[in-house]
């Protein structure tokens, strides 16, 4: 009940629009550009009827929002979530536009979703949702128009069902229609690691700027899904240590934090984690982890916080509980910090690497996958990660230099850069 109440109070699209309005004002964007960019260019809302395993028919609500494609084909994931709303999808589509622009890859921003809870669906039922979703938007997506990808509670299997349905409809082979496919079936090596690694590539550069040695830094991570796990892996390789992680417990319908002051063991936690990133709390306790309430991840005495779960996790209610030792927040999740919390962090001098920069590794590798799929020629891991690091680091340095030059916070600098690039491409095309 509490979560639902907060969802009503927090409208991500309003947040995205207010962020945009502030930036538009700051760079003196003309009215036409403002009108074009503060709303999606296209939206698709549709029903997906599915015959369930028990023989009953259920109708799921699906969306695809294409915010802006002036810089290239739309790009954005498909979320399966019981609390999905069109405003969440709109906000995330807009953020995808800024994200592809800030890392300077030739793509636009889109997002899709289905209101459903995969935990309660069989694989066959999920497959029917995937195929039904594609049947509804097949005419409006594709390798040269809008390229979906996995997101919250969707994975490579879902992508493959969607690709298969799309190819069946069009009578072609078009692996570039979707990304996040399994390796060997049009997927790219490094895709699984990309978002988490990308977070740490930007964090590494921030640590260099702040003259902080990673081997002397400890971090707390929210979430234990794909992004969090690979972020922990690379942070560990840089010499850092993660002392707390949190994860969602599907049985208890609440989250827990798991703490070990000497540093968590990634391999150990992976061995007791379900496919959605839920850590078995009983086994964790047996392994010597302290099992704490879900919110505890944010209160840890650490140098770095890495939120890698859902949006709206650092907000006005909990921002004051962040420990005074924290110097950097690397936003692995989309929109984890509300504007109120952002303002409070700014006042405290906490350095925030904004979400659409920090977690752009995923979309960057999706772009690599799309390029490889369209060529039907695939790169090795070293090449993928070498290029990923280059793009992420260049993007971070662009934003950081711009922020220093213009005396801006990182989020504002990233948004100004991104919005300016998108607005310019709209102007270049003669749209505005």
């Amino acid at each position, binding site marked *: 009940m509490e979560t639902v109440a907060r969802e009503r109070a927090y409208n991500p699209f309003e947040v995205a629009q207010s962020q945009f309005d502030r930036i538009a004002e700051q760079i003196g964007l003309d009215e036409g550009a403002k009108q074009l960019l503060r709303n999606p260019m296209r939206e698709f809302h549709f029903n997906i009827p599915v015959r369930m395993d028990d023989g009953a028919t259920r109708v799921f609500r699906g969306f695809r929002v294409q915010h802006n494609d002036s810089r290239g084909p739309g790009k954005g994931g498909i979320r399966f979530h019981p609390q999905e709303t069109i405003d969440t999808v709109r906000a995330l589509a807009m953020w995808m536009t800024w994200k592809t622009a800030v890392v300077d890859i030739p793509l636009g921003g889109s997002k899709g979703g289905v209101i459903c809870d995969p935990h309660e669906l069989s694989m066959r039922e999920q497959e029917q949702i995937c195929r039904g979703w594609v049947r509804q938007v097949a005419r409006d997506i594709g390798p040269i128009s809008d390229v979906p990808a996995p997101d919250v509670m969707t994975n490579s299997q879902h992508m493959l069902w969607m690709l298969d349905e799309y190819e069946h409809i069009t009578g072609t082979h078009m692996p570039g229609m979707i990304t996040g496919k399994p390796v060997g079936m049009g997927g790219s090596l490094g895709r699984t*690691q990309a978002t988490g*690694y990308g977070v740490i*590539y930007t964090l590494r550069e921030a*640590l*260099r700027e702040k*003259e*902080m*040695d*990673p081997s002397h830094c400890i971090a707390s991570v929210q979430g234990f899904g794909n992004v969090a796990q690979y972020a922990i892996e*690379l942070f560990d*390789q*840089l*010499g850092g240590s993660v002392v707390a992680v949190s994860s969602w417990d599907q049985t208890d319908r609440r989250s827990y934090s798991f703490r070990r002051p000497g540093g968590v063991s990634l391999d150990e936690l992976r061995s007791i984690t379900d496919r959605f990133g839920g850590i078995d709390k009983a086994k964790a306790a047996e392994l010597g982890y302290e099992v704490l309430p879900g919110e505890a991840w944010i209160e840890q005495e650490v140098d770095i916080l890495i939120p890698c779960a859902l949006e709206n996790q650092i907000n006005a209610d909990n921002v004051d509980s962040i420990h005074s030792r924290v110097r950097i927040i690397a936003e692995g999740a989309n929109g984890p910090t509300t504007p109120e919390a952002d303002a409070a962090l700014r006042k405290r001098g906490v350095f925030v690497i904004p979400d659409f920069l920090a977690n752009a590794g995923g979309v960057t590798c999706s772009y690599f996958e799309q390029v490889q799929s369209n060529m039907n020629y695939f790169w*090795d*891991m*070293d*090449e993928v*990660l*070498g*290029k*990923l*690091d*280059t793009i*992420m*680091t*260049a993007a971070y*340095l662009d934003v950081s230099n711009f922020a220093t030059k213009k005396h801006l916070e990182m989020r504002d600098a990233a948004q100004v850069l991104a919005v300016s690039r998108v607005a310019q491409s709209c102007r270049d095309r003669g749209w505005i």
Partner: protein
Amino acid sequence: MGDRDNHGVDLFQRRADGRGSGIDRIGRGEIGGKASGLVFLRDQVLARIDASRFEGIVVDVPRMTVIASGVFDRFVELNALDPDELAHHDDAWIAHVFQRANMPPTIVGDLHNLIRGLRAPLAVRSSSRLEDALDHPFAGVYGTKMLPNNQHDSTTRFKRLIEAVKFVYGTTWTRTARSYHESLGEDIGHESMAVVLQEVVGRRSGDRYYPDVSGVVRSWNPYPFPGCTPEDGVASLALGLGRQIVDGGASWTFCPRRPRIQPPWADVADRARNTQTGFWAVNMGRPPVHDPTRETEFLVEGQLTDAERDKRLDPIVSTWDTQNDRLRPGRIGPAGSPRVLDFAPMLQFGELPVAELLVELIDVAREATGSEVELEFAIDFGLRRDDPARCRVLQMRPMAVHGGTVEVAEDELDHPETLVRSTSVLGDGDETVHDVVFVDPETFDRAHTREVAEELAELNATLLAERRPYVLIGFGRWGSSDPWLGIPVQWGDISGVRALVETSLDELMADPSQGSHFFHNLVGRGAMMLTVPRTTPIAWDALRALHEVRRTKWCRHVRSDRPLRLRVDGRHGRGVIRTDDR
């Protein structure tokens, strides 16, 4: 975060030109022996040299980036590579396994960025923990790969670079390296490898990229020329890449303090016959067949006529005037005239103060390190006549000099139970062994020296495993890269040897190659060497009479019940191997 480590090496920064200044580092850990030597050279040797004394030539170290040893450790861990497991496979398989492995994600971005800003040919060299240590010389044990790095597409250059780094990594666990570690009592699992990425010195001529001169200079010469002392040092020069010298190919050897003293060749014809005829260069032309496991993948061998066409010979060559049977400095007469690479215009006529510079380098380096030293360098004369020549020091390593404790009297050479006697020795020692391996003079055929080398490696492995030091007797130049000049063993193939006997046959005579890695390892390990001329017989019958442990197609392994005594007196140049009568 500290951007400079305790060697004074900056952390690699992604700048607009993709390159930091001078020497920088990627990753954590040690920078290894080779890189440490160069940092020391930059800070403690070159900084003390008054460059203005050497007109027309500047000296420095090439720009380089070091991939620190922690990256190798991580690479091994990430790909679950196990040296013990790979020990059951041959070197080709090990190289293949390393090529299939992935580089750590923490550094691929830096390498990608580095290569985007770099278009010059690159040398990718090993710099291991033990390499170039005074008591553990590992010269030539690990691989080096040269890359043209001239592909238009940065992705291709990146891939070649990654392959080259993995190639060097793979050589950490080869049979040669393993055997070498065993001979030192070191666990190969403890070895860690840094990699040096160094710009290749030289310039492009057609499809070849090479320096005008490569060289090795040593501050101590165990075989001094007449009129010189060991302390005068010795230098070897060659045209093209230094591989020519360090692999034991033909080169010009001289005393840097007395460059006008001619090496003891019999006559001009003899000198002309033994001159360098080919040279190594980086292949800048059509890409070869892709083979990332081959060290020479991007190397090409040129002939002197090619270098003449490239107009690279004038300052380094003499022409054989056959009518008057004399050498005339410079390139005289039409192309195709007999040339001798004796560097006379430079050394005899002082067109460039190279000899003086080498003397200064070894003197300052000896003082700075407190030990004898060996330096590898390359010189590029520049494109235009008025460009200063650029001498770049590629490597500096200490030299272990053993000597001065054993005295072999002249009459000892006549002892009745002597198996081998020599008046030209290297090293110093008084030891006993029981085992002798010799190349059988009755069956020896220089067309089959590679097979001999293979058999010796096998025998060495057995003797090493049994911890039995031994004497090795063979023909021609040990460690020669040219199988017609001697037996082309690598040091790891004979690493258990205590005394090496080099003798001649009518058909096979060669001088020791002083600049070679093989020679360096021999001296560095304190092994002794006895050179026996054709005229001094070896007691073959007595050797054959010993208990034969094993006979292969070309070699024999014999064992004496009584100890065999090795006595080598480097100071007086005398040595004997005989049955111990104590």
